[in-house]
């Protein structure tokens, strides 16, 4: 039934499916924002989307370029100051799902977006953590989306911007962190979930047409595959149309402004 789709589209749609109607999501820019809004426009119309700019319960018609575009405020249930956002809403434990991206990711869901190389004399200075350190510890659980690459999915990250499962097992609890941490990784090739005991990310399903070898070839650690490895359900026509319409509206809106 479904048309051709890109790995990127599959990634966004697979992430969208993991979101439910009663979720309260802390949304980042890029793939997370697209996934959250596709969820809202398909199976989860009542999902609550929160951007760290203070906008609570937004329903943007186009995707924002920044986390603080005017559209987010205009469609929000309410807009609060940034200190309140981080104190009452994030630290207060009211967010069920936080979305994070990564420049570098290890198999335990630890994330680096700070530096490549040494912190004091970096090879590449990246933007840094922003909200991520506390999103990683305060949200009920963490979903990660990223495109696979040997540069990105590494055995050892250069800097612990945000803590996932540390060195695995009960490392979170040992640090006094009460939340679940990363429970889902959606890449352009596969859906991963942490092993219940070791907490190492394990491939649960390959996107349609993707092979185990492709997943391993773009991942810097030795990949574990689930015994009952499945295939990710291809995007439905509705999912694909929703995503493409959203992207088209976004492109038109952003180009319109540049004119």
């Amino acid at each position, binding site marked *: 039934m479904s048309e051709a789709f890109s790995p990127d589209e599959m990634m966004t749609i697979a992430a969208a499916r993991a979101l439910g109607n009663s979720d309260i999501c802390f949304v980042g820019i890029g793939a997370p924002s697209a996934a959250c809004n596709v969820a809202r426009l398909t199976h989860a119309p009542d999902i609550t989307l929160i951007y760290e700019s203070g906008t609570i319960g937004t329903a943007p018609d186009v995707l924002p370029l920044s986390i603080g575009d005017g559209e987010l405020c205009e469609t929000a249930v309410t807009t609060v100051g940034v200190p309140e956002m981080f104190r009452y809403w994030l630290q207060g434990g009211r967010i069920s799902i936080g979305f994070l991206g990564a420049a570098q990711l290890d198999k335990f869901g630890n994330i680096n977006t700070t530096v490549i190389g040494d912190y004091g004399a970096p090879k*590449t200075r990246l933007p840094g953590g922003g909200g991520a350190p506390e999103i990683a510890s305060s949200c009920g659980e963490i979903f990660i989306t990223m495109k696979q690459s040997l540069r990105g999915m590494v055995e050892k990250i250069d800097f612990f911007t945000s803590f996932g499962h540390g060195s695995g097992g009960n490392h979170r609890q040992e640090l006094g962190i009460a939340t679940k941490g990363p429970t889902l990784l959606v890449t352009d090739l596969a859906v991963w979930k942490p092993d219940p005991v070791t907490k190492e990310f394990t491939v649960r399903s390959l996107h349609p047409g993707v092979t185990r070898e492709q997943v391993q070839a773009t991942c810097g650690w030795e990949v574990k595959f689930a015994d009952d490895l499945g295939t990710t359900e291809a995007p439905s026509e509705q999912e694909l149309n929703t995503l493409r319409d959203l992207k088209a509206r976004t492109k038109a809106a952003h180009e319109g402004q540049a004119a």
Partner: protein
Amino acid sequence: MAKFTSLKEAVADNLRDGDVVAFEGFTHLIPHAAVHEAIRQGRKELTLVRMTPDLVYDQMIGMGMAKKVVFSYAGNPGVGLLRRFRDAVENNWPHALEVEEHSHAAMANAYEAGAAGLPCAVFRGYKGAGLKNVNSNIREVVCPFTGETLAAVPSVRPDVTFIHAQKANRKGDVLIEGIIGVQKEAVLAAKRAVVTVEEVVENFDDVHPNACILPNWTISNVCVVPGGAHPSYAHGYYIRDNASYVEWDAIAADREKFTDWMNKNVMEKDETVFASRIENLKGAGK
């Protein structure tokens, strides 16, 4: 008590070499005009505090005005990296830059604590995070009731804060609406505060009783600079110039191109240019 002055006068009166200064605005209402005036006045050795350094600190860092930057996210939102900031950190160009890096939660709490007159902010944060190991201003406090270890950072107390807002009334009270960010905290945490506004209105009688208003006695100078947030935006006045944010990436990528652009668009201009920059952005998008 707020004085109404030109921006040129306000910057000259309030920003000194060596100051700790915050130009705040979280995506919305970023005080670009104030930053450009500070650049024209050539202030040096500044400690620049801001959650998201953004284009404004990329420009000041590239112009060699910053001794240190205190921040939590040094990106061009939705576009990519800040290339002048990178060049300073990676290559010491135009000179070395001291970095004090925090999380958003820490910075937001530090502004809040500054506004609250406290020496430090206490929150639940940095659990398992690497910044704890590279920033000696991230410390701990133990809850005397539960024994839980909480994070502590020093409060932010700028010598001067600059913000952009929608409106002042004739008395110099200032109204901020929409995404209000940390501006109220940044003003209340500072010794001095300068606010650029889109316009002055007679009074705020029709404004919501719980709107974000800074009374005139919390502000040093109010300056009318229409368009003063461009290419950021002012809710209700003009939209974000996303194209300019995208273009900045190429400009900042090259030292010479950057210098040329700064000369042409900042050094040779004055605050009045901002009104013309928003002409095509008024009422757009909606």
